[in-house]
C-alpha cells in the first residue's frame, strides 16, 4: 500500500536513518527512528512547481496543501487536501487523500476538476502514476513504511563538499517502479540532499536534489527540491513558499464538501 505522508517534505527526509557515529544500528532501526522523528501533527504549505521539458520550456503549478496525521485514530494514518491555485486552466482542481494504518487497506482518493464540476473517485492503488504532470510519482512523494524496503548502509560520501551517509534501499514489492534508491543524508540535519532512483533494468532513472534546508517549527525542511528525470529529459523544481507545522486544523476540511468548494475558510 502506498502511504502519502507529508508531501514533498518526506521526499527529502524519509531516508534519514542513522545517528552520527552509531553505524552499528541496523537499517531497520534507523528508518524506524527517522520515521518517528519526522512525524508531525499537521502541515500547511504553499509550494510552486516549475516543470521544465527538454527544450527548456517551462510550466508552473502553485499548490496549497493541508495535511494532518491521525496516528491510527479510527484507522487513519493521514489525511491530505491539495488545491491547485495556478495556472488558470487547472485552478480549483483539488485532491483529497485518506491513508490508513492498515498496510493492506488502499488509500481513498478523490479528485475534483472544475471543468467537469464533478468529484471523481480515483483508484487508491496507483503507485507508479506521476503526480499532475510533475516528475514525482505518488510513491515518490509518499513516505514508505519501514518494512517496504531492505536498507543497506554503503558508507560515507561527499556531496557538494559535505560528507553524507550513503544508503541503498531496495523495494520488497516486485511491482515497484524502481529497482533501488540510493540516498545521501546530512548527518547533522538528517535530511537527504540527494536521492538516485534506478529503473528495473538498473539504469539511473531520476535524481532528486534538495537544498536550502531551513528549520521551521523545529523541523528541518528543504525549501528547494529538484527532480531530474533522465528518461524523459524533463525536470521539476519544487520551491516551498511557506510552510507551518503542528498548527490546529479543523477535521472537517478533509471532506469532499471542502474539496468541491475549492477553498478553506
Amino acid at each position: 500500500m502506498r502511504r502519502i505522508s507529508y508531501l514533498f517534505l518526506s521526499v527529502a527526509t524519509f531516508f534519514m536513518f542513522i545517528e552520527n557515529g552509531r553505524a552499528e544500528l541496523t537499517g531497520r532501526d534507523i528508518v524506524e527512528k527517522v520515521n518517528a522523528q519526522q512525524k508531525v501533527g499537521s502541515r500547511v504549505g504553499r509550494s510552486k512547481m516549475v516543470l521544465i521539458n527538454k527544450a527548456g520550456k517551462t510550466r508552473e503549478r502553485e499548490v496549497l496543501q493541508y495535511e494532518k496525521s491521525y496516528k491510527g485514530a479510527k484507522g487513519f494514518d493521514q489525511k491530505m487536501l491539495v488545491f491547485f491555485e495556478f495556472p488558470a486552466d487547472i485552478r480549483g482542481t483539488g485532491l483529497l487523500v485518506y491513508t490508513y494504518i492498515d498496510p493492506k487497506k488502499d488509500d481513498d482518493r478523490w479528485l475534483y476538476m472544475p471543468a467537469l464540476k464533478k468529484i471523481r473517485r480515483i483508484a487508491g492503488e496507483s503507485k507508479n502514476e506521476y503526480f499532475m504532470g510533475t516528475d514525482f510519482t505518488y510513491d515518490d512523494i509518499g513516505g514508505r513504511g519501514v518494512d517496504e524496503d531492505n536498507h543497506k548502509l554503503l558508507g560515507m560520501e561527499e556531496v557538494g563538499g559535505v560528507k553524507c551517509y550513503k544508503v541503498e534501499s531496495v523495494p520488497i514489492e516486485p511491482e515497484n517502479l524502481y529497482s533501488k534508491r540510493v540516498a545521501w543524508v546530512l548527518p547533522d540535519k538528517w535530511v537527504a540532499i540527494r536521492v538516485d532512483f534506478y529503473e528495473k533494468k538498473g539504469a539511473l532513472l531520476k535524481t532528486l536534489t534538495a537544498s536550502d534546508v531551513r528549520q521551521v517549527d523545529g523541523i528541518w525542511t528543504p525549501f528547494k527540491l529538484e527532480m531530474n528525470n533522465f528518461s524523459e529529459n524533463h525536470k521539476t523544481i519544487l520551491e516551498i513558499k511557506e510552510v507551518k507545522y503542528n498548527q490546529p486544523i479543523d477535521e472537517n476540511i478533509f471532506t469532499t464538501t471542502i474539496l468541491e468548494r475549492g477553498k478553506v475558510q
Partner: protein
Amino acid sequence: MKRSRWIGLILLVTIGILQAEVEWHGFLMQHSAFRLQSPQDAMLLRTRWRLNGEYSRDNLFGYASLDVMNDLTRQEATIIDLKMAYIDLYGERLDWRIGKQQVVWGKADGYFINDIVNPLDLSYFLLQDFEDIRMATTLVKAKWHTGNHSLETVFIPEFKPTKLLFSGNWGFARPDSVTFDLSQFNAALPAMPLTLPLYYETDIQGEYSLRKAEWGFKLNTFLFGTDLSLIYLKMREDRPVYRKTVEMETMTIAPGVTIPVPTQLILQPTHPWLKFYGFNFSRPFGMWVLRGEGGYFPKRYFDSASMSALQNSNGVVAKPFWQGMLGLEYQLTASIDLSVQAIHEQIEKYTAGIQTDKQTNIGTLMVRGHFANETLSPLLLMLYNFEDESYLSRLLVEWNYADNLVLAAGIDLLGGKADTIFGRFDRNDNVYFKIVYSF
C-alpha cells in the same frame, strides 16, 4: 428604514466589495469544425471570449462568468451571455450558493441520469464541453455538512426548457404532417388515409415563479469506502411533451347533413411536473473503480401517436420510466486510463403508439491518455446504441503547448439509421480544431 440607513448599508456593501480581493481570469477560444462529407462546409466557426471574476472575503465568495460568442456559420449576432453569477456564503456546517449556477449530481460520463437539475443545451448535440451542455439556472442551494455526510437542498424558481434546434446541422427535425385513418375520427367517414398538417406552437423560453419552483435534495455519505448519494427532485420535464388538439371543420356531405372533419393537428409544448428518485455510488477496488447511477420516474410523460391517446389524453401518455448506469474504470498503464459504461433505459407498461423506444441500451468506451508530463492528452470516446445500432465516436488530441495555450484537434463520427439517436446526424462527421488561450 430611513434613507440615510439605506445609503449607509449600500456604502458598506460597496466598500466591502471594493476591499475584497477581486481576481479576473478566463480564456479566448477559437473552435472550428468542418464536415467530412460533401459539401465539406464549415459547421462551426466560433470565437469565444470568457471572462470570469471572483471576489473573496472571509466566508463570502462571489463568482461571475461572462461569455462573448460569435459563430460565423450561424449568421447570428454576437451573443453576450452571463453564464453564471452566484454568491457563496460559508458557515461552519451550512453553506449557501445563491444565483445562476450549475448543479452536478451525476457520476456518468457523457450521459445524464442524475444530472437533471440544469436543463441541457443540445444546440450542438453532445459535442460541446459539458460546462456548455448544462445551462445554468437561477436557484438557491443549501448544503449542510458534517464530516463526509452532507445534505444538499435546491430550490429552483427559474424554469428553462431543453434548448433544441429544429433545423440546421444539429437540428432535431420534426415531422410536418401525420397520417390517420379518417374513419377513426368519425365512423360515418370512409376508411381512407388522411394526412394532417402539424402546427407547432412556440415553446416557452423560460419563466420565474416562486410558487411553481422546482425543489429537491441530495443526501451524500461515505460508508465502508463507498461514496453513496440518494436524490429526490420535484421537477418539470425539460424537453417538450406535445399536447395535441385536432382542429375540425364542418363539412357538408349531403344537403342538410354536416360532419366535423379534421383539418390540422395543433401541438402545444408542455412541461409536466415529475417526481424523480435517484441514487449513485462509486467505490475503488485496487486499480479499478466501480461507479453506478440510477433514476426512476413513477410517472413520465411521452408523446403518443395512437388514436386512443389522442382522443383520451391529447396524445400524451404517462408511464413509469427508469434509467441505470454501471461503469468500470481501470488504469491500464501509468499513462492510460480506461472507462466503460453500460446504460439502460426503459419505459414500463409500454403501449403502442409511444414515440419513444421502449428500451435503450447504450455502451460507452473511453480511453484517456496523458503523456509527456501531461502535455499531450489523447481521448477516445465511443457511444453505441445496441437497440438501433447507431453510434457516436470522438477522437481528440489536446496539446498543452504552454501553461496558457492549448491546441486541440479531433474528429467526430456519427452513424446509424436516419431515425436513430445518433444516426440522425449521420452527415455531420467532422474534423475540428481548437485553440484556447487562458489568462
